[in-house]
């Protein structure tokens, strides 16, 4: 019972009490106080993946003094989406601006009360600055509420590895490569030719990679009819794409990889497959994974079928935000011409803003990593030919959590195509019914 030990105990007790009192405020990255020095208002922007929004926000911050954007990367979509759903439902936790993936957008449009109406904040005037389908896409069905403004779209191309094409005796120059396939059947036939040359690489990374471009090109619906009924079982194009994809793996043309897994990453390093359907944002993914030593080995050709879209997103302002006015100003800039171009420059995210698409900075742009391919031209052309597709409320989950895993199971030979399809349809119905 020395003095020191008693004092220690007292300190410990004091620390405990202080700690409990502090715990509500301590060590949080987000800043709740509205204004920092000099009347600057900071708005938080929560995004997932690498859409180039961080770089766009930095540019914004360097040119604006009254508003600052704190751009926060929330990790993967699959982690972010459940959290965002919770935040919107509970009215706490969300930032002032949040990114919505088009596959999840319908879910929020059907229950839009968690979001501010951008029409009321001055969004009405922006109509003609966006691609029409993207503008329409951010509104509720009754056209009374504008929830989101478009950021990137995923105009499609086909990326290919030049060194593997050369090994197989294929042309490597991008126009000649584009001429190899005008539709998917030709592309698949080329794949069989490629396989016969025994390069040691597969033709494509996985059977599931063709689903998105294939369906997006040939249909205006996927799992849902336009009145949001589940039609994943009866929509012929879905089954057709499924059979096409698994047909590829039956012929041994796929590397049977799972996207976003470390093994997929490793496959880029090891040049394990020759082609990859490439939405604009995928070029950033490739360069990040294949690394500096593969610079110039990847190139961009046109996609079989000529157009299409894979992914794309919107930015919205949650109703819970206390800085809607400033958030809208920031949002307007980010989705505007300058913001769009900045994001494109940083991450290859293709803008949906018309002025940005027409700007030479986009139109004449080349991708240095992808062998200086004129990506602006290639993706721009694909975007113009694009037909909008209706994705229902649970689209993203239906694809990522139900159909894709079953398709992977069939691809790996654990399940037959028929059994996997039956299971996917059964589970899909259940999920869609909620």
């Amino acid at each position, binding site marked *: 019972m020395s003095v020191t030990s008693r004092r220690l105990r007292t300190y410990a007790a004091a620390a405990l009490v202080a700690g409990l009192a502090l715990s509500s405020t301590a060590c949080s990255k987000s800043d709740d106080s509205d204004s920092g020095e000099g009347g600057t208002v900071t708005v938080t922007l929560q995004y997932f993946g690498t859409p180039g929004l961080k770089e766009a926000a930095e540019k914004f911050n360097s040119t604006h003094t009254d508003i600052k954007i704190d751009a926060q990367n929330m990790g993967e979509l699959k982690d972010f989406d459940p959290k965002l759903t919770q935040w919107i439902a509970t009215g706490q936790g969300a930032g002032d601006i949040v990114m919505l993936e088009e596959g999840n957008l319908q879910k929020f449009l059907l229950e839009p009360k968690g979001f501010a109406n951008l029409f009321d904040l001055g969004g009405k005037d922006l109509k003609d600055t966006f691609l029409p389908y993207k503008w329409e896409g951010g509104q509720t069905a009754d056209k009374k509420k504008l929830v989101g403004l478009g950021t990137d779209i995923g105009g499609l191309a086909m990326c290919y590895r030049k060194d593997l094409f050369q090994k197989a005796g294929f042309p490597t120059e991008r126009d000649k490569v584009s001429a190899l396939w005008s539709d998917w059947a030709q592309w698949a036939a080329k794949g069989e030719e490629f396989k016969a040359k025994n390069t040691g690489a597969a033709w494509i990374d996985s059977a599931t990679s063709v689903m998105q471009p294939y369906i997006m090109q040939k249909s205006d619906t996927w799992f849902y009819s336009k009145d949001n009924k589940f039609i994943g079982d009866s929509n012929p194009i879905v089954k057709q794409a499924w059979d096409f994809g698994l047909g590829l793996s039956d012929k041994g043309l796929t590397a049977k990889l799972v996207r976003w897994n*470390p093994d997929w990453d490793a496959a880029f390093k090891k040049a394990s497959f020759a082609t990859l359907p490439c939405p604009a944002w995928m070029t950033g993914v490739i360069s990040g994974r294949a690394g500096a030593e593969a610079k110039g080995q990847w190139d961009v050709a046109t996609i079989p079928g000529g157009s299409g879209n894979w992914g794309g997103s919107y930015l919205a302002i949650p109703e819970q935000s206390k800085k809607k006015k400033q958030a809208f100003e920031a949002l307007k800039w980010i989705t505007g011409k300058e913001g769009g171009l900045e994001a494109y420059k940083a991450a290859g995210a293709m803008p949906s803003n018309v002025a940005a698409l027409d700007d030479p900075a986009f139109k004449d742009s080349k991708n240095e990593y992808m062998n200086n391919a004129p990506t602006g031209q290639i993706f721009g052309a694909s975007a113009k030919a694009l037909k909008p597709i209706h994705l229902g409320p649970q689209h993203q*989950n239906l694809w990522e959590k139900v159909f894709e895993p*079953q398709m*992977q199971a069939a691809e790996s030979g654990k399940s037959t195509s028929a059994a996997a399809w039956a299971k996917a349809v059964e589970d899909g119905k259940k999920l869609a019914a909620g």
Partner: protein
Amino acid sequence: MTTAGISTGRGSKFKLTKLDMKYSPYLYIAPFFILFGAFGLFPLIYTGYVSTRKWTLVGGDKGFVGLDNYTELFGDEKFWNAMFVTFGLFLVGTIPQLLLALLLASWLNKKMKFRTALRMGILLPNITSVAAVGIVFGFIFADRFGLANWGLDLIGIDPVSWRQHRWSSWLAISTMVNWRWIGYNALIYLAAMQAIPKDLYESASIDGASPTRQFWRITVPLIQPTILFTVIISTIGGMQLFTEPLMFNYGQLNGGSLGEFQTISMYIYQQTFELGTRYGYGAAMSWTLFILIMLFAGINFAMVRRSVKGSTT
């Protein structure tokens, strides 16, 4: 118990002391009961309540639905798959774990140098965090560049797609679990072994019993209560297995494309917080699991009681 209550009071202080002695014990145990009640017991019991309601994150509490959630659960293939995985992983994760722990403990139960260092060495996995170690093991069991497949290649075995099969994913996950818990259990067994009088062994060796025979005939029966104790602890832990299979699958809740290693905790989490956010259904699953664990632990507990009564310690 004790006789701390001796009246020593003089005058007014007497009353105060009496009050203090009568009520302060309640004051001292109250924080535990209040906090545990509010954040431990209440949620657990309330789970039973939520399980009888249609309750979603977005829609809120939509009222009483009786046993509908349970009826659905009994017809839910994925629930049963997750149950199968959980019990299966429990078995392949626990039995070798406890056997190896016994073996380790018997090695440690000797006179030796560097005693503390060796004990610390085998306890090391237990103090590390599951999330961190899960990441490391996720890479060890990567299909195309992982250490495990490299090792197999060295001895001429084809690489394994670890996440594609039930057996391979279970092997990898139970390796993680075993790695983490063998040392801990070994120390517990060691403590029990040290309580066994050494002369029992001496007489046995005079009778000509081999060390192996002594181990199975003396050591194991005498530490049986401890073994059952570890079985209960492992049961409770094993039934709630979550982080290892999650990190093994790079943070995805589906446990393989066909749910080959989706445990019941992962399925509950997925159904409640990822897909559909159905609190009612998730609660029904939690409650079912709770009852199963209690049943399991109860059976084990009864066995402990019986063996304690039967043994001499």
